[in-house]
Structures are given as C-alpha cells and as structure tokens.
C-alpha cells in the first residue's frame, strides 16, 4: 500500500469542454519515493496532482492517502492539504505578507500550531531553501525572482507535509537558478526521506534527480516505473512529443548503427563510460572488435 493511490480516477473540466483532463488513472506511489511526473501541456499532469491534496474533487474514482479514502468525509478535506503539500507553478505569485517570515508562517498558522512550533518550522524551512535569517524581516517583494520562488517553496515546506509535490518549480528560471532549486529539493528528500513528486517538462531534470517516473499522455497514465525503464521507451516518448536528452538520442542512434551501447543511456557520464569501454577494449585488442 503506497502513500498515494488512485482508483479509476477521472476528472473532466466544465460542461463546455466535455473532455477529460484525466481518464481512469490507476497509480500507486510508494512512501519515500522521488517521482518525476512528465507529459506535455494538456496531458493531465497538473490536474492529476491537484487531486492528491484535495484541491480538485474526483469526477469519478477514488484517491487514497495512506490508505484512507480522501473524500470519505468531505468536511475534513483540509487535513490532506497539510499532509500533501503542493507548490504551484510560479509560486512567487502567491506571496502576500509584509515579511518573508510571516509569509512562510502562513501555512503553519493555518494548521493551528503553537507560536514556538511555527517559529522553528519557519526557520527550518527557510534553511532548506537557503533563505538566510537576514531576509526574514524583509518584504518578499524586495527579493530577486529566484529568492521569491524559494520563499514560496519554503511556505509549503514549513507545513512539513508527508508528500511534497512541485509543479514545474523551475519554470522561467535560468540554469543556475534551476540547479539551485532542484539541488535543494534533492537534499530535502535525502534528509527527510519524504515522498517528493516533481512535475516537469524536462527529461534531463527528471533523469538527473528522480528515481521513478510517471509519464502522462492524453489524460492517461502511460507508464510508471524506474527512470531506466522509462528511458527504454524513448522512441515512444519522442512520438508523444516529449523530448529526450540529446545524449539519449545520440546513444539510440549509435545502437541502431550496431554499436554496443545501451540506447537508454541518459547521462553524459554513462555514455562516456560505455564509449571508453568500447574504445579501450579495442586498444587492448579484445575480441569484441
């Protein structure tokens, strides 16, 4: 029994569209995983994750958190918002308080925690995302774009959710800002052992940080498995309009031309090792040549 499980989960938007945003999704996400959720715009990935903390109510089907049916008691849905923290796309647009401290404290305050508890959580969350104490009294609107984003993420981290979901947390950031945020999230996962779901367009990022991948396509869960398994299906991913890392396409082509390189390679290091093995083997006059 995983931490998040869905049973024939479907949802469609508005009578006008009559088109399912997600259609009969059955997945089971294990506790403590670092899962990448990929798929292009309109594949249903954002709609799916908004079901995990009860922001959207299933059209049909069920969502279980730790084995409990989320909508068994609709009045208590708010408690799942604290169990499953969701960071939206461009979360800096939700900042509103006078100080960074107060903004991060908004979630914990809504949970009804004690003042001491709130304070320790705010500082802990700020530390994870690398917001120093000197910024705590500053207005969030004075910070740089990347800092604002990190304060917004801290606002969700401070609720100390069992599951952290980030919907494209690096959208619009430059490579340096992107790496910083993803590294911080990876570190958070490493230390807390909490479940993290990373919604992303970037196969590179997913390959680099996640252990498992959920691929959404046309409102359905196309596949859910280890990164390696998913990359084995690279040709299908390409067909559905997702882009695979450049290194993967290089290795795929080399394999096609008959070289002994695994086509599901997704890091430069791995490609380099395989190539050196091939080349080195020849140098030493091995028989595989």
């Amino acid at each position, binding site marked *: 029994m995983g931490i998040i499980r869905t049973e024939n989960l479907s949802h469609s938007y508005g009578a006008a569209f009559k088109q399912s945003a997600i259609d009969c999704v059955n997945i089971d996400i294990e506790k403590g995983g670092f899962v990448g959720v990929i798929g292009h715009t309109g594949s249903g990935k954002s709609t799916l994750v908004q079901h995990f903390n009860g922001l959207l109510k299933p059209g049909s089907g069920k969502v279980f958190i730790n084995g409990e049916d989320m909508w068994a008691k609709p009045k208590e849905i708010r408690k799942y918002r604290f169990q499953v923290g969701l960071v939206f796309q461009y979360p800096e647009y939700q900042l509103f308080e006078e100080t960074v401290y107060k903004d991060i404290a908004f979630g914990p305050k809504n949970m009804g925690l004690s003042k001491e508890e709130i304070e320790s959580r705010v500082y802990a969350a700020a530390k994870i995302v690398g917001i120093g104490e000197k910024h705590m009294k500053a207005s969030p609107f004075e910070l740089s774009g990347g800092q604002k984003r990190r304060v917004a993420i801290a606002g969700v981290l401070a609720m100390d959710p069992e599951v952290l979901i980030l919907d494209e947390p690096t959208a619009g950031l430059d490579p*340096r800002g992107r790496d910083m945020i993803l590294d911080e999230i990876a570190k958070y996962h490493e230390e807390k052992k909490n479940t993290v779901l990373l919604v992303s367009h970037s196969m590179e990022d997913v390959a680099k940080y996640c252990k498992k991948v959920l691929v959404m396509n046309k409102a359905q869960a196309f596949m859910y498995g280890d990164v390696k398994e998913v990359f084995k299906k690279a040709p299908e991913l390409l067909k559905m309009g997702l882009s695979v890392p450049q290194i993967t396409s*290089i290795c795929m082509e080399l394999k096609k031309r008959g070289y002994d390189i695994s086509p599901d390679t997704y890091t430069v290091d791995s490609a380099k090792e395989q190539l050196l093995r091939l080349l080195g083997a020849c140098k030493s006059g091995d028989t595989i040549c």
Partner: protein
Amino acid sequence: MEEIISCEDMAFSYSHENEEKDKKIPVFEGLNLTVQKGDFVAVLGHNGSGKSTLAKHFNAILLPQGGTCTVVGADTRDEDKLLLIRSHVGMVFQNPDNQIVATVVEEDVAFALENLGVPPDEIRERVDDALELVGMSDLKLRAPHQLSGGQKQRVAIAGIIAMRPQCIVLDEPTAMLDPRGRREVMETITALNKYFGVTVVLITHFMDEAAACKRVVVMSGGDIILDDAPKRVFSNVEKLKSVGLSVPQATELIFELKKAGYDLPLDVITARDCIEKLIGILEEQGVS
C-alpha cells in the same frame, strides 16, 4: 554589410532608489557590439549578466549613460528618431500575456500599424501577411486567452513583423513556455531570418536555443566574454562552465572523450555531428 545595431563603448548603471541616492549599480561599462543586417544572434547569459539591459538599449527603452548606441543609423538618444527606431527594431518580451493589447488576435497584430497611422486597407494586407508568416491565420479571430503560450508569443511576433521591421529583438521569449511552445517560437524566428532576411537578436538563457543561431554572444557580469559562431563558442567548455553556463551534451561528451586522450575536434554541438565524429573514431580504432 550594413550595420543595424552598433554599440560603442556603452555604459549603463541602475541607480538604487531605496538606499543612498548616489549608489549606482553598474550593469556594463565600455561595451562594444555590432549586429549586421541579416544576422541571427543569440545573447546568452545568466540573470544579472546584463543581457536584458543590453536588449532594452536596442530600441531605446533604455538610453546609454556613456558611449553611444546607434540603431538603423540613428542615435537612440535622439528623441525625434524614436518612432523610426521602434518601427525598425521591434521587441518581443518574456511574458506572452503582458504584451497583447487587443481582445482579438488580428486586432492585436494591427495595433502597431494603427499607431503608425497606416491606412486600413494596407493594415489588413500586412496583418494577414504577418499572421500567415507565423502560422496563426486560422486563429486570427480568437481571443488571446484562448491561445497557448507558444501561440501567444507568435501573435506577439506577428504584431512586430506587421511593422515590417529590419530587426526583431526577443527578450527571453521562451522562458515561460513549455517545450512545444519553445519549438514553435524557435521555428518561427528561424524562418523569419532564413526566408525573409529579418535580423534577429535572441536574448536567452537556454544554450540549446543559442546553439541554433548563427552567432552567439556570451555575457557574464556585464562583459561580453565570447562572441563567435556557436560551434566555436561552445568549444570553450571550461570557460562556459566557469561562469555557470552549460554546453550541449554532445559537446560535453566529446570534451570528456578528448580529456580521456582521444583526438576529437571540439566544435560539435548537434547530435548528428557528434554521432558522425564518434563513429569516425570508433571505426578508426577498429570497432565495427
């Protein structure tokens, strides 16, 4: 070749409003750059490298505090030439939502022409041409909020193209788009440059977009640290990494193999080139 943009010894600094009045934060000093007619230049750099500030000089949103910025033969500080400059060098911004003025696609594309007082029949013709060029003719009667991010950016590009400018400057036009939208925008501007000879200046922090241009200008800390064809720029793997920029994976792989002692040329940026070079060396070493 004709120069469209020419910056000479340009300096600019932002003054900090909150603190002491005299405190100025310099963005760049003594910057020199020329863009020729027909160029397809990427300006690559991090946030804070000065690339957007530079772009804003190209159509006189910002004026140089030192040196000169000459655009289509006019000094940007000459207020009488403002309309001339802006109608010849159009600008597309990052956020697709915040640059569309009208409630209907074709009306928005017409906006600049209406401002310039172009007669209605000619507006119609130019708007239709511009929409055709960016592949948005079918959606010309849609409301902007019904479009995807990539489509909105193409509308914004059409709005500039309708002015029939010599040059189009795009300030991180793909930063807020998904991969499909990014592809749409890149294809559109590549076609503009290739088939219609429009000079393109693309400000970006995506190195793969820069790799697709004809020329790459790398900025860091307000300085131009590299300015060359993409292949040659990206062969400076260590230099780029030292300023926190990455290189295409193809380049990186070749770089790593070279480091391991294999004789490979570093000017590889595309997957195809890389495969060719790899097969070359594999065959040379006798791997079948």
